[in-house]
């Protein structure tokens, strides 16, 4: 068991600054998710922790060992699961799981026990004699996790392990993964571009963009208190609404942000609620079963950004008819409003 310390870590590929000065402190036993779009540097960061990529500068400590120099991957006490699972195609499931143990010259009997234990944990015992090509995606993913597990690693590194699964399977796999991590309590670093995975799995989320960390926090913090407009629009589906209301009570050049699920017909709110109301010109209503997405714009505020599309997300519990092409009274509770600087995008505390 060990935490990970990363200090001003950089990785440059020629002119490309894939990881551009990252400081990160991962606690012992924590499930940390690196969230970012492709090219944000999250995978490069993970590969540097694994030792597959050599940092341009900076420090990485795993437990009390500094590993950024010449410590090879095998000596870092890590286990990794790749997106492709990287199973050895010519070895059976049993031999795949046993591979790290064989490499460390574990006695035969112990290997046998350990593989059975791990296979049992992921209920793949009946596939032990098969080859990877005979397995489905979900089964392969579990084999890869098993192989990671038997090493007794100090740290798990997972690179989009659910990305190759179909949507249905992904939910149960996510649940399995989280349960399994709680059970063994091993520090886990998980890379994904899928915010649902990030929110659902992470104890904390690190939002990355262009090699830099934008925000570190619990899923709740990242969602409710984004530090800038990038995080505000990157996390959340649909993204946070941002508009320049031109409100005289606010400092000039301020963006007002609110989540679509807070933007509801005024009649829904109780009388006691402190509201900011908008005249919402509804363009289109999208019926999605559990929700309705209402697209439109906020009319009459006179500000330049007022034409921007605003989305309201109405839960199915609000049965109110919203005719398209009309203007409605919508409102946001003032406690749900967030303010950002129009120029820097940074959060503004007002």
């Amino acid at each position, binding site marked *: 068991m060990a935490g990970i310390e990363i200090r001003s870590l950089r990785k440059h590929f020629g002119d490309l600054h894939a990881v551009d000065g990252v400081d990160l402190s991962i606690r012992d036993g924590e499930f940390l998710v690196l969230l970012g779009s492709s090219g944000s540097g999250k995978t490069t960061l993970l590969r540097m922790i694994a030792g597959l990529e050599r940092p341009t500068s900076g420090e990485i400590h795993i437990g009390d060992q500094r590993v950024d120099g010449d410590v090879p991957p095998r000596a870092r006490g*890590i*286990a990794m699961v790749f997106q492709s699972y990287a*199973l*050895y195609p*010519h070895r059976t499931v049993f031999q795949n799981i046993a591979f790290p143990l064989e490499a460390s010259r574990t006695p035969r009997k112990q290997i046998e026990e350990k593989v059975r234990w791990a296979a049992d944990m992921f209920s793949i015992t009946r596939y032990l004699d098969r080859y990877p090509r005979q397995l489905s995606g979900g089964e392969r993913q579990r084999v890869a996790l098993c192989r990671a597990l038997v090493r007794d690693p100090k740290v798990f590194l997972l690179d989009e392990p659910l990305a190759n699964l179909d949507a249905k399977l992904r939910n149960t796999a996510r649940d399995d993964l989280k349960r399994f991590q709680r059970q063994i309590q091993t520090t886990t670093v998980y890379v994904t571009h899928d915010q649902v995975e990030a929110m659902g799995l992470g104890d904390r989320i690190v939002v990355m963009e262009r090699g830099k960390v934008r925000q570190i926090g619990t899923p709740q913090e990242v969602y409710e208190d984004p530090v800038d407009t990038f995080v505000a629009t990157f996390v959340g589906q649909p993204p946070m609404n941002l508009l320049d209301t031109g409100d005289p009570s606010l400092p000039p050049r301020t963006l007002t942000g609110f989540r679509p699920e807070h933007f509801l017909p005024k009649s829904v709110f109780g009388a006691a609620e402190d509201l900011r109301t908008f005249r919402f010109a509804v363009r289109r209503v999208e019926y999605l079963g559990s929700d309705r997405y209402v697209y439109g714009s906020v009319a009459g505020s006179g500000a330049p950004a007022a034409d921007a599309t605003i989305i309201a997300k109405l839960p199915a519990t609000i049965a109110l008819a919203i005719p398209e092409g009309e203007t409605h009274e919508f409102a946001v509770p003032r406690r749900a409003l967030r303010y950002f600087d129009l120029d820097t995008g940074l959060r503004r505390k007002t």
Partner: protein
Amino acid sequence: MKRVALYAAALGIIAFAGFPFYWMLITAFKQNRDLYVGASDLSHIPWIFNDPPTLDHVKLLFGQTDFPRWVLNTLVVVVAVGVITVAVAVPAGYSLARLVGRWGERMGIGIFFTYLIPPTLLFVPFSRLISLLGLQDSLGALILIYPTMTIPFCTWLVMGFLRSVPWEIEEQAMIDGYSRLEVILKVAPRLIVPGILTVVVFSFTLVLQEFVYALTFISSVNKMTVSLGVPIALVRGDVYHWGALMAAALFTSIPLAIVYNAFIDRFIQGFTMGAVKG
């Protein structure tokens, strides 16, 4: 209906591919009269035995030429060149694909270009080199020269093939407890078996059909390879011993066809992967 068309097409292709073999077969066992009379007698049917088959040509090939000796020589050269090519091209292709990064590709292309230089241009400097080494008129000359053709192409082939084998499996092995060297020695070879097989088959094919270098460097009949000995011994002036020539072609190509067939799946895998991703 679709099936009928499919089978018809398959049959057509089989006929197309099989016809040369059939022609070799009947020519090798036809009597000379049966072979040549068609030129003056238009009612003669060329693709069947009009006279009873004969073993004369086979006897000529085995009795009056050094054909068995040439086969043996060819085998020696093929095996030696194959071993040298695999030993050089596989590690070279591996390191170019995996370790050098961006320069790997450029070097790979550079190496491939050397393959494009025709033997007719190179045999002059090579002959000087061979005489300097005292290897004239020996199989050693061919064993030394042929890898100059096989290695560049095969390096490139292995490189292209390896790009299609995910690096991740080897990285996984490094995380699982192997050093890079152990990965190269223990894990990588299993992953590139189709690539290695392709290299072997390719150098095999190349050596079997090579003529220019063999003609340049070998002069003694008992040191010739099949591709050199057969035309030299069986084409005398303007007299072509067609029956014996076809018998030689038949006896060389049948074992080859069997070998190719045994590996055809992996061979295609190796080749197309290299082609698509290279």
